[in-house]
């Protein structure tokens, strides 16, 4: 329905798709986005926020008990020394990849459709990285010594081992978190100024004004601003690819069969983008309906995202196949055993859950009907995130649970505290996201306005400047421009 409307509005001359439906003017964009923040809190928001806060409380309790009692409250033990903690960490870092992909890589490729979803996706990235940073922080055991991860001069005269991928990870994820916050905040400045200028109360004017830094929309400012934004995008692009590559090296640099493979960095990055886009879908499907943004976040946007999910999901499937090929082709019996054990051993249920969710189910996105159906997109986004959580579980736990000596074999079972930490991290994520949509403009209005046709200074404002020939709109040469 809306899709055909979008197709009708496509500009055949410029060859550009119409990204925003219902031809709104600039003010209508501001109104619908800022209005969502300004009106009184809708009841539906509490329906999401209160359960999220309850889960956040559960996280607090689980972490407090963990600190009090020690790592033994979790189900991990030798041979499975890493279990749900690191699974959750890799899962959340992966989710955090879509935001920067949308804001940086799609920006460099001039994918103008990103403007409708980049703000919310960047926010999602930051909250996912917060959840991710939690797990390595709390799994170190003696959490009060976690500062040993940082190269801080200390009375012991010792320094961290910079040759270790685990330390690369500390730097990669914390730099990624910092750069994501900077990117997001720089994008927010013009919209915070919009909120400031629309505010009706002193509190709002002060709060938004403080963080808007006195932005005046000056073209001299936009000039430096756009340069900074481009530079940040160019920096974030290799960064986003490096973060999950470094995370994968936590595994790949070890000598463990199932972890020690060179395919891990690209395989992890593809999986991260895959799961991140799925989470963007989950959130956007809810937000566009809840905040009446169907004309800004259109079915066309979902269509594009579903295509990216199909591509990255297929890359992930290819990686699964390559791992098996390598295990066979290497002729290494331990490697071959690990992979046979993955598919047919005690954790076969987890492996086939992963394959079903990540490789089989995304094939539905070959069909445009599926890519533009909101219920299918929503269900698929949940399935993919379940599958990607299982992927990390399969990689970590199945590689560890049967090591070289059969007498040391084991089977990992989560405890109630493992489950509480995972559920609680969702509480943290959704609490932050609910606060974000309540207090900050969830669509980058200044950027969405630039993709409206009337934002082009050479756009013919008066109808007489257009000539219609066989239904094709022809733009005359702009006047006064050499």
């Amino acid at each position, binding site marked *: 329905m809306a899709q055909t409307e979008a197709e009708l509005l496509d500009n055949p001359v410029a060859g550009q798709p119409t990204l925003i439906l219902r031809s709104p003017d600039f003010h209508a964009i501001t109104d619908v986005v800022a209005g969502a923040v300004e009106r009184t809190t809708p009841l539906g928001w509490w329906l999401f926020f209160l359960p999220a806060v309850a889960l956040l409380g559960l996280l607090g309790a689980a972490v407090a008990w963990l600190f009090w009692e020690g790592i033994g409250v979790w189900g991990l033990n030798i041979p499975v020394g890493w279990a749900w903690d690191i699974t959750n960490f890799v899962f959340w870092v992966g989710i955090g990849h879509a935001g920067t992909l949308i804001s940086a890589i799609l920006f460099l490729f001039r994918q103008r459709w990103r403007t409708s979803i980049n703000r919310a996706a960047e926010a999602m990235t930051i909250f996912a990285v917060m959840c991710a940073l939690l797990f390595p922080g709390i799994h170190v055991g003696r959490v009060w010594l976690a500062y040993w991860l940082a190269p801080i001069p200390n009375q012991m005269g010792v320094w961290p*081992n910079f040759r270790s991928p685990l330390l690369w990870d500390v730097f990669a994820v914390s730099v990624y978190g910092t750069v994501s916050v900077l990117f997001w905040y720089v994008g927010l400045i013009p919209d915070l100024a919009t909120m400031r200028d629309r505010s009706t109360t002193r509190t709002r004017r002060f709060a938004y004004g403080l963080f808007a830094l006195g*932005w005046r929309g000056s073209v001299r400012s936009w000039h430096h601003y756009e340069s900074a934004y481009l530079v940040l995008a160019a*920096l974030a692009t290799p960064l986003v690819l490096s973060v999950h590559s470094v995370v994968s090296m936590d595994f790949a640099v070890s000598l463990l069969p199932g972890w020690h493979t060179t395919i891990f960095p690209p395989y992890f990055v593809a999986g991260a983008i895959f799961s991140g886009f799925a989470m963007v879908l989950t959130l956007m499907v809810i937000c566009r309906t809840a905040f009446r943004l169907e004309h800004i976040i259109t079915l066309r946007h979902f269509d594009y995202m579903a295509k990216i999910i199909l591509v990255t999901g297929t890359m992930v499937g290819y990686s699964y196949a390559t791992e098996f090929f390598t295990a066979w082709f290497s002729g290494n019996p331990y490697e071959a055993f690990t992979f046979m054990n993955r598919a047919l051993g005690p954790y076969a249920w987890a492996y086939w859950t992963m394959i079903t969710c990540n490789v089989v189910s995304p094939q539905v996105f070959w069909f445009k009907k599926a890519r533009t159906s909101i219920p299918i997109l929503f269900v698929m986004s949940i399935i993919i995130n379940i599958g990607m959580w299982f992927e990390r579980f399969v990689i970590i736990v199945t590689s560890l649970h049967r090591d070289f000596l059969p007498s040391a074999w084991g089977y990992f079972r989560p405890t109630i505290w493992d489950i509480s930490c995972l559920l609680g991290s969702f509480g943290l994520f959704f609490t932050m996201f609910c606060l974000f949509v309540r207090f900050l403009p969830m669509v980058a209005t200044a950027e969405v306005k630039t993709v409206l046709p009337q934002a082009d*200074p*050479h756009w013919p404002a008066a109808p007489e400047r257009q000539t219609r020939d066989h239904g094709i709109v022809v733009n005359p040469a702009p006047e*006064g421009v050499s």
Partner: protein
Amino acid sequence: MPLLLNRLPPGPHYGLLAEFATPGDLYHACERVRDAGFTRWDAHTPFPVHGLEGAMGLRRSPLPWIVLGTGLTGAALGFGLQWWVHASAYPLVISGKPYFSWPAFIPITFELGVLFAALGAVFAMLGLNRLPMHYHPLFRSKVFERVTDDAFFISIESWDPRFDPSATSQLLQSLGARNVELLES
């Protein structure tokens, strides 16, 4: 000129503020104001209008050079830290590698280069734009509140050598300004 100092025109008037209806009107008006030889003036838009910096005759932003500098500084600091720690401050044989095993230092060198470059980009942007500046004479104008919504403005400051309250106001009106306002400083 000091980078972070607030530069506002002296005297009782800040300058003239003229509103334009569309990005196109603003674009053509900017070309004429530029060609008339004004130097201390600015345009204000709710979103970056493509090509407007050319219509205003702005030079390229020096920001990428600043970012190059901070990025290389970060990378050098990162590499230097690892070198110093592993070869001098705390030499340990790990996995039989030499103390100065530089290929293992590349990831953190890269990360710190990106961190410093990103911080450099943000702070250079704020510095070049003289932000934060929470007070500005333009905020006295009521119509200017719409600059972050759907209004397009040109402001010409009173200390421009070619500024004359009545002649400049007439110029702006002849360029299609909707209303022209004289702002106090």
